[in-house]
């Protein structure tokens, strides 16, 4: 993988590790970004990681399956698609129907991916607060509704700003969660263990 562009070492290592009869893989790379990416891959797959520097710009990375030094509960179950992150006690404040600044079409697709990921967390956040155009994610016909319903079923409080629903003429279209006012939003934010603001 020496001289190969950024994603290639991780892609090739990932492919090699997918073979059930392989116990591990050794990858030679020439930069520390690649070693860090391979370390993250190993962690995600519950594999052991070792890196030996063999002179300047020359690293030998070994990833081994089924590391016994890793506690069993730290190893992801087969097919698990992301680490079990816990968001217990968190309030997530969503103030837009897109994620980040820049391309609108990219932002709108990113927020969908984010809400899906949130619904996959082993411990979901306590509260989801939707403000301004963020309320559009929780109304009838929204593509994000299914993921929000998963979150609601997991006990997450989903609250949408009533003023905002009214502004966008969506008051009767809220399809998941409840309407709240600014006092409710302020108190939820104040009560939260941590606030994740988008």
């Amino acid at each position, binding site marked *: 993988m020496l001289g190969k562009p950024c*994603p290639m070492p*991780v*892609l090739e*290592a*990932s492919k090699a590790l*997918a073979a059930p009869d392989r116990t591990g893989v050794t990858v030679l790379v020439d930069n520390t970004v690649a070693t860090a*990416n391979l370390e*993250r*891959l190993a962690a*995600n*797959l519950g594999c052991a990681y070792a890196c030996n520097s063999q002179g300047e710009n020359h690293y030998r990375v070994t990833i081994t399956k089924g590391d016994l030094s890793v506690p069993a509960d730290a190893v992801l*179950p*087969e*097919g*698990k*698609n*992301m680490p079990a992150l816990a968001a217990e006690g968190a309030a997530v404040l969503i103030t837009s129907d897109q994620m980040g600044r820049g391309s609108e*079409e*990219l932002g709108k*697709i*990113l927020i*969908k*991916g984010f809400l*899906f*990921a949130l619904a996959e967390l*082993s411990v979901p956040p306590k509260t989801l607060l939707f403000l301004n155009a963020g309320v559009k994610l929780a109304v009838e016909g929204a*593509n994000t509704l*299914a*993921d929000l319903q998963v979150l609601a079923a997991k006990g997450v409080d989903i609250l949408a700003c009533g003023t905002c629903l009214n502004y966008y003429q969506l008051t009767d279209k809220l399809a998941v969660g409840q309407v709240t006012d600014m006092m409710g939003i302020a108190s939820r934010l104040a009560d939260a263990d941590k606030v994740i603001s988008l």
Partner: protein
Amino acid sequence: MEMILTFENTNFSVKGEHLLLRGGLDVKVMPLPTTIRAGCGLCLRVPPRQLAEAETILADAGVPIEGVYSRKTENGSSTYLPVERGVPCEDD
């Protein structure tokens, strides 16, 4: 079960979602699972019954699908299996 469509790059994912939504398909976005490919990326989910239609819409618009996987979720854990492509290539 859902079918997962992966793409070479984010632009194809974004364009693919737009096309499938416009085509009236029940398409959803999700981050690309690490077990399919490490790194960042977005893939699309469609119901199995809409897979063939999705493949046709994307092929007609020149958006290449990189891979198709089935997603099965049991006990909160998802398994992804590669799916053989059923639609013949019409590029030639």
